[in-house]
């Protein structure tokens, strides 16, 4: 690094020096050229001016009258001639300048009339260089630096024209060189030094890079040699190199340590004689060596050999030898890396002795393992065969097991998910696809509470499959407890898409059936109604009687369909429970008003007794009304004329108990166990009344139980029956669903 920086520094300085040196030379050349041209200008100007006769100049007035002066004409001719000669020196302008009243006026000009720059006698020199004033004062020839006047940029020589004898100054002869000419001359002159500098620079750079490359290679070589030495010297194993004659050319520290020969003792000796036991590996040795020196190959190259060597003290050292070859400057070398295996050999001996013991204990262990494996494969088979997904996690919710069914359901193979955090792989979503709060996830609940946690199928949670689609799941999570400590949990889950679909179909069936079954019933109801009303003409007594029968049967059919629909609604679990604070007394009064006609028909007496401080309770009045209606309708139907029906509502602990009693036909002992069954009707009343459906008590029981209550009865045949049912004072919880009763 340091080397590199200093090299860059050297390069920069050298380049800069060359450029500066070249620049200086160029500058000198430039100055010399300017000087030379100026000198030439002065020299030629003086020579030419010498030829001008001052007496003629004397006659010039620097006005238009000069044009008639023969001296003027002569001088003009002379200057024009001279001009041809001066052209070669770049002097394109020559003229005479006179001074009058502190002004400079032209007369006599080498430029012919009509060409650019021509001045007529008497023309004013508008912007003369300052040197012009100087010469009129000093009267000595001079040259100007570059200046600008109305005709352009020039350098000029001004030569005074004086009277020979008096020295009086008549005029000044001016000779101009175009600045452009000067410039061109300078360029031409400086081209050589500039090019030379560039060539020197290129040459220098090439030499520099060649040399630095050489240096780099030399450094790299040195470095690699140092590294090689460092490696060989610090190597734990002896490293030895021999040339193609079998002479040792490398002997590292480990070799010194193992064999006891120092480097100086070993180098230059025959390897074969130094460390191999006498006569042991002598067969064909010299022939092998010859072959190696010729081809650089040997059968031992690339192999690991085990052989015996001897050290300085003559002790046998068993070693492992691996040999490789290298060609350095047309010479083959063999490099051997030696590993002292005497300790290993010893260990192998000990191992052999112990192996028998090990074999015996192994056999014992194998026997135990077999038992364990058998147990494990039983569990595995069980978990594999199970249709539900099973995923187990540890206490940190990392997946530790996933069975085959889970792979099928989720698309994730157990290999892909084991070790990952469960909720990273399976975010738990609600039906809108939103991830639910951590504390609501079954795994978290199970591990926190230590109890089994299940989700409901009516408001299911969702898992994501590998392909990012979600599916509804029924989940049961059980914590894994070992020694009363929770170490993880097992999630048994199944895809309930199909179950939900079936439920949906059930609901749709209810809706469809209610429509399809009721339509013809409505038609029958309405037409018989119209017949009875005489809308189609007056009926005879007999006709009226028949139509009434049809109408009554139709009403029963409607009631039956309604009951069936209600049962279906409750069974499907999709019924809405919509609790509101309800006064049970009012509910009963409503029902009694509804069936009042029938009670009056049978001249029955109704007694209602309600606990005087009965609180309103939070129940679904539509449902509970159905219970009272069923019980009271039964009491009315199955109690003979003039009978007694009583209703008591009382409070006991946290329950409200409703009792509906009659002194009617009662239920026989034989029928009692089956009285709440669907479609079951008491044997005694079937004979008396043909109208019942056998669904009323079943429906009442379903409703009471879904409202967290209990229903029971006591009855004696021909004495009467009492039904009781309870409702919790705390009321029932609201439940979402799709259907209500009687809709």
């Amino acid at each position: 690094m340091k080397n590199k920086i200093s090299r860059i520094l050297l390069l920069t300085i050298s380049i800069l020096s060359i450029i500066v040196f070249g620049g200086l030379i160029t500058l000198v050349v430039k100055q010399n050229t300017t000087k030379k041209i100026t000198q030439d200008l002065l020299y030629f100007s003086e020579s030419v001016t010498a030829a001008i006769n001052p007496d003629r100049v004397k006659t010039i007035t620097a006005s238009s009258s000069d044009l008639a002066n023969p001296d003027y004409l002569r001088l003009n001719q002379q200057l024009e001639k001279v001009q041809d000669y001066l052209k070669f020196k770049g002097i394109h302008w020559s003229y005479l300048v006179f001074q009058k009243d502190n002004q400079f006026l032209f007369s006599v000009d080498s430029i012919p009339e009509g060409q650019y720059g021509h001045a007529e006698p008497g023309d004013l020199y508008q912007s003369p260089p300052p040197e012009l004033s100087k010469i009129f004062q000093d009267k000595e020839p001079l040259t100007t630096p570059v200046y600008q006047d109305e005709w352009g940029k020039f350098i000029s020589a001004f030569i005074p024209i004086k009277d020979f004898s008096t020295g009086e100054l008549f005029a000044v002869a001016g000779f101009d060189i175009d600045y452009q000419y000067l410039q061109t001359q300078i360029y031409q002159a400086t081209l050589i030094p500039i090019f030379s500098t560039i060539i020197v620079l290129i040459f220098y750079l090439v030499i520099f890079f060649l040399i630095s490359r050489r240096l780099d290679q030399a450094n790299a070589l040195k470095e690699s040699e140092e590294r090689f030495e460092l490696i060989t010297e610090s190597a734990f194993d002896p490293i030895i190199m021999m040339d193609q004659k079998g002479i040792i050319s490398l002997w590292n520290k480990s070799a010194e340590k193992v064999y006891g020969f120092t480097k100086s003792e070993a180098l230059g000796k025959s390897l074969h004689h130094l460390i191999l036991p006498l006569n042991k590996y002598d067969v064909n040795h010299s022939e092998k060596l010859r072959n190696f020196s010729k081809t650089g190959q040997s059968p031992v190259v690339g192999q690991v050999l085990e052989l015996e060597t001897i050290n300085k003290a003559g002790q046998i050292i068993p070693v492992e030898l691996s040999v490789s070859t290298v060609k350095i400057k047309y010479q083959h070398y063999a490099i051997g890396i030696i590993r002292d295996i005497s300790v290993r050999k010893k260990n192998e001996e000990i191992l052999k002795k112990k192996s028998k013991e090990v074999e015996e204990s192994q056999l014992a262990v194998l026997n135990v393992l077999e038992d364990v494996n058998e147990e494990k494969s039983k569990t595995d088979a069980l978990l594999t065969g199970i249709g539900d997904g099973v995923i187990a996690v540890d206490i940190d919710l990392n997946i530790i097991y996933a069975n085959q069914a889970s792979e099928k359901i989720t698309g994730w193979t157990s290999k892909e998910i084991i070790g990952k955090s469960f909720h990273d792989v399976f975010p738990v979503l609600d039906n809108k696809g939103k991830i639910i709060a951590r504390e609501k996830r079954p795994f978290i609940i199970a591990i926190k509470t230590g109890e089994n946690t299940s989700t409901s199928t009516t408001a299911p949670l969702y898992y994501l499959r590998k392909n990012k689609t979600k599916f509804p799941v029924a989940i049961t999570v059980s914590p894994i407890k070992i020694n009363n400590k929770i170490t993880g949990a097992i999630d048994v889950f199944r895809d309930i898409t199909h179950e939900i679909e079936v439920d949906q179909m059930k609901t749709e069936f209810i809706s469809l059936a209610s429509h399809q079954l009721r339509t013809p019933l409505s038609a029958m109801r309405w037409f018989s109604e119209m017949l009875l009303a005489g809308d189609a003409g007056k009926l005879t007594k007999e006709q009226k009687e028949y139509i009434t029968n049809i109408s009554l049967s139709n009403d029963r059919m409607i009631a039956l369909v309604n009951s069936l629909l209600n049962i279906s609604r409750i069974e499907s679990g999709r019924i809405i429970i919509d609790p509101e604070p309800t006064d049970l007394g009012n509910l009963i009064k409503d029902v009694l008003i509804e069936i009042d006609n029938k009670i009056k028909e049978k001249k029955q007496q109704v007694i209602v007794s309600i606990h005087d401080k009965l609180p309103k309770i939070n129940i679904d009045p539509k449902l509970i009304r159905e219970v009272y209606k069923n019980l009271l309708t039964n009491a009315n139907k199955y109690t003979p004329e003039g009978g007694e029906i009583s209703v008591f509502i009382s409070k006991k602990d946290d329950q409200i108990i409703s009792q509906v009693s009659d002194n009617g036909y009662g239920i026989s002992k034989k029928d009692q166990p089956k009285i709440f069954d669907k479609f079951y009707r008491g044997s005694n009343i079937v004979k008396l009344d043909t109208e019942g459906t056998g669904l009323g008590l079943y429906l009442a029981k379903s409703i009471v139980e879904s409202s967290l209550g209990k229903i029971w009865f006591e009855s004696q045949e021909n004495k009467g029956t009492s039904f009781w049912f309870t409702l919790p004072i705390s009321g029932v919880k609201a439940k979402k669903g799709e259907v209500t009763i009687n809709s």
Partner: protein
Amino acid sequence: MKKNISTILVIEDENLLLQAITKKLTLCGLNPVSATSGEQAIDYLKNLPELPDVIWLDYHLKGMDGLTFLKEIKTNPKWKCIPVVVVSNSASPDKVHNMLALGANKYLLKAEYRLDQIVETVKEFVHCDKK
């Protein structure tokens, strides 16, 4: 009073029920106009010289159902004032809720009522409107 017989537009796709309804309405002194589908009823509304006093609407219809029909009626400024009595075979809470929310005046379950009871209800809305 320009007309003394009130017109009831009855929409019912069950032919038998429709017969019963129109017969009963006529006997009760009303003028029934029967349509077996929602589309037909809309056609009538567009072409009848005078709008009906009450619409008797079944929920389950072939083609356009009662809900869609009601939406059409209630979004048309000319028709939205006509009282609508829904007479259906099913009265699940969401259906009842939706229809009443849309502006139906009454929702009756067919099998629960005698025809003359329903006609009485319809008549109530006729008088209502005439006031």
